[in-house]
């Protein structure tokens, strides 16, 4: 590259407080950012990728976490050693930043206009009110927001996730920074919105000749936008190079491991499952809210979370229920397990319509339908030991503690944990381990139908693939029917026999995974597939190479 680097980080080391699990958050990290390029920093959670960017922005939680070594050269000076006041002048005006969660990064009680004005006034720019106003409209227009006037007058909660992220980007770019740091800016967004935001960032970067540091855990996103890639593990850079190099010919075993765990987008042709039907759902309707007028004359808002949903799952079959947030996919799962009451429909579970059963009649069926939840941190009771958590279900159903305890030991073995875990509390386990415990808990009931509600969405890729393998193994071994609710099309392609695509509470496409992926019929399915990041990148075959 002939251009001169705008940001040069050399031997950066960030120290953690004494009792932390490792001495350094970031250790001996050096890299450069050039104008007009997108540099992706990838790594799993805890790899120090966010810490390095926070160090650049001077946003480390001092005094506990601090830069103990190295320098960050920007415009000819070392910004790691300048005062807070000087840093403040650089922040925002020379280096902009966007965050993962736009809802919390924007002030919820301030109109968008006002927040954008803040940017100007906090940097003491001598601009008249009218000038600022035209500037704001221009900015909102630049980030592709329709009707900048209206958007400017709204509060953040009135905007959609994608619109909020666009406002964030507008704010970050207001003062024409030379560097934009984007910390997982699309992780909280739906695929179609994510695709738009990625495109927007790439466009803006090009027109303004900015350097962009893009932090992500998603190799699909990397493939979509990166020029250069840095791979981090445990606070160290293990590999860096051009995107093409890293993605197709990774050198380091850790990079190879990460790439090898990325699910392939293409589905394989599978034999259709023809065993007995375990559950068949017909005409399931679920409406949130009611149209009746409330006490104070407010008309209730109604959301049709499930509209005439039909589906069936056979023994040993996995049905993927995919869709974006708010499509009603989780609602359908929760209606089948009767966590939510449905408004109408039939859920035929091995010949019995379980929707018509009373709570006590439902009891014997509870054993047969079990669920694995999304958030491994919220789905285990923090005040109970793992043993009590796993044996709770059997105990409720009258199985003696000694028997269920023995079974719990076996189950932990099946999910790959030591039986000592039974006497420990959830907070002593990592996210992946907790998800395994969640699976063991579901299996303790000897279910026939397993509902996995975004069961791997909160996990790092390498852990994700282990849990997926485990689920697949269990399904085959115990001949379970599985309803796999997910927003991630790559994951769905890998594990599901059949796919149902949902939008606004309706199933718009339903068929074999292979057919849905290779010959989508509905426009919405097509746009979903179109939006998958890095779809042009074919995950390389790394078998035979050394993998960490």
């Amino acid at each position, binding site marked *: 590259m002939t251009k001169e680097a705008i940001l040069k980080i050399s031997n950066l080391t960030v120290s953690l407080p004494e009792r932390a699990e490792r001495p350094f958050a970031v250790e001996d990290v050096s890299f450069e950012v050039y104008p007009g390029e997108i540099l992706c920093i990838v790594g799993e959670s805890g790899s120090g990728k966010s810490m390095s960017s926070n160090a650049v922005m001077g946003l480390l939680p001092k005094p506990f976490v601090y830069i103990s070594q190295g320098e960050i050269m920007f415009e000819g000076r070392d910004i790691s050693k300048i005062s807070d006041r000087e840093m403040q002048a650089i922040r925002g005006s020379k280096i902009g930043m966007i965050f993962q969660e736009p809802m919390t990064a924007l002030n919820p009680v301030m109109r968008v206009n006002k927040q954008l004005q803040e940017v100007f006034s906090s940097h003491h720019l001598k601009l008249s009110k009218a000038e600022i106003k035209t500037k704001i409209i221009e900015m909102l227009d630049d980030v592709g927001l329709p009707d900048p006037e209206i958007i400017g007058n709204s509060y953040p909660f009135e905007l959609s996730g994608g619109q909020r992220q666009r406002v964030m980007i507008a704010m970050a770019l207001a003062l024409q920074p030379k560097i934009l740091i984007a910390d997982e800016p699309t992780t909280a967004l739906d695929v179609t919105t994510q695709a738009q935001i990625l495109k927007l960032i790439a466009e803006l970067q090009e027109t303004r000749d900015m350097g962009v540091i893009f932090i992500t855990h998603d190799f699909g996103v990397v493939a979509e936008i990166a020029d250069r890639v840095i791979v981090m593990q445990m606070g160290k850079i293990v590999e860096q190079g051009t995107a093409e190099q890293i993605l197709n010919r990774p050198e380091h075993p850790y990079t190879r491991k990460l790439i090898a765990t990325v699910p392939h987008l293409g589905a394989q042709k599978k034999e259709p499952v023809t065993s007995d039907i375990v559950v068949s759902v017909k005409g399931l309707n679920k409406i949130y809210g009611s149209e009746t007028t409330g006490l104070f004359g407010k008309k209730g808002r109604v959301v049709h979370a499930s509209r005439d949903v039909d589906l069936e799952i056979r023994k040993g079959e996995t049905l993927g229920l995919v869709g974006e947030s708010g499509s009603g996919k989780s609602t359908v799962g929760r209606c089948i397990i009767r966590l939510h009451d449905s408004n109408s429909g039939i859920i035929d579970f091995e010949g019995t319509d379980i929707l018509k059963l009373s709570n006590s009649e439902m009891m014997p069926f509870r054993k047969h339908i079990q669920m694995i939840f999304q958030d491994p941190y919220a789905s285990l009771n923090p*005040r109970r030991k793992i043993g009590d958590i796993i044996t709770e279900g059997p105990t409720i159903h009258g199985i003696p503690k000694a028997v269920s305890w023995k079974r719990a030991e076996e189950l932990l073995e099946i999910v790959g944990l030591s039986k000592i875990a039974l006497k420990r509390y959830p907070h002593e386990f990592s996210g992946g381990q907790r998800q395994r415990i969640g699976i063991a808990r579901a299996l303790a009931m000897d279910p026939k139908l397993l509902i996995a509600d975004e069961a791997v969405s909160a996990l790092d890729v390498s852990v994700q693939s282990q849990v997926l393998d485990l689920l697949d193994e269990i399904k085959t071994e115990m001949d379970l029917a599985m309803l796999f609710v997910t927003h991630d099309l790559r994951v769905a392609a890998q594990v599901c026999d059949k796919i149902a695509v949902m939008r606004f509470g309706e199933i718009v496409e339903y068929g074999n995974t292979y057919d849905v992926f290779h010959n989508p019929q509905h426009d919405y399915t097509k746009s979903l597939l179109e939006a998958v990041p890095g779809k042009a990148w074919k995950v390389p075959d790394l078998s035979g190479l050394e993998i960490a």
Partner: protein
Amino acid sequence: MSDVTLQEKQNSALVDALKGFWIEFKRNRGALYGLVFITILGFVATFAPFIAPYVPEEQYRDFLKLPPVWVEGGSWDFLFGTDALGRDQLSRMIYGSRYSFYIGFIVIFFCLTIGIVLGLVAAFNRGFIDNMIMRAMDIILAFPALLMALALVAILGPSLENAMIAIAIVYIPHFVRLTRAQAMSELGKDYVSSSKTMGASKARLMFINVLPNCMAPLIVQATMSFSSAILDAAALGFLGMGAQPPTPEWGTMLADSRQYILSDPWLMTIPGLFILVTVLSINLIGDGMRDGLDPKMKSNK
């Protein structure tokens, strides 16, 4: 990780949690001083018969209104002096501390049990039952606390027990609200959903699954209310609606010596000072506990 280290780790989990709490608590100097004072007071209250030099009701007619030892005219026989009837102030203070703890513990016991049950029932039965419970609590809260307690004592008749019942009723709404709010935020979490899918009964969900996760703020609230209960009982005693003479309750002692406030001010000063320091100490402990128990406060330091 080998099994041996796992075993060790598991044994130390609770110890670690307590240690973490203690480290956080210790950081708060005030809380530490408060704890020291309350520990001493608790010791004195427990062993009152052995520590007190005299029987608190015994009248020494030769020594009326004797000033404390550090004031001119005081005597080493009566360290805190004597009251208008010649009773030893120190002994009365020592026995009085028993009443303070008694009031605090009983009131908090009733508040916690009733508050938790009502709060959980309200949180688990949204709609009619929830509305009934919460509106009833709103009505109690609509009255000034002490006025409400006074009115209740007026109905029940003045005695220490009735005063405690009245104070408990006044404080229950705080516990109900807190429990309900906590329980409702826990109810949305998936571990509760998971128990539901297993077919767990409502009682099981309430007391085994949700309640332990609501305890931290309730413990803090209980500590804070402990001191308020002592204060209110003293106020009721002062107004003649609480403990009745000759009970050596601190508030009653204040009331007994009210008419001597100008001539013999120490008679009121000593019980007043003890009420003040006791309440302050408990509040400081409460602050320290909040720092240690509430993870949201932890990160702020």
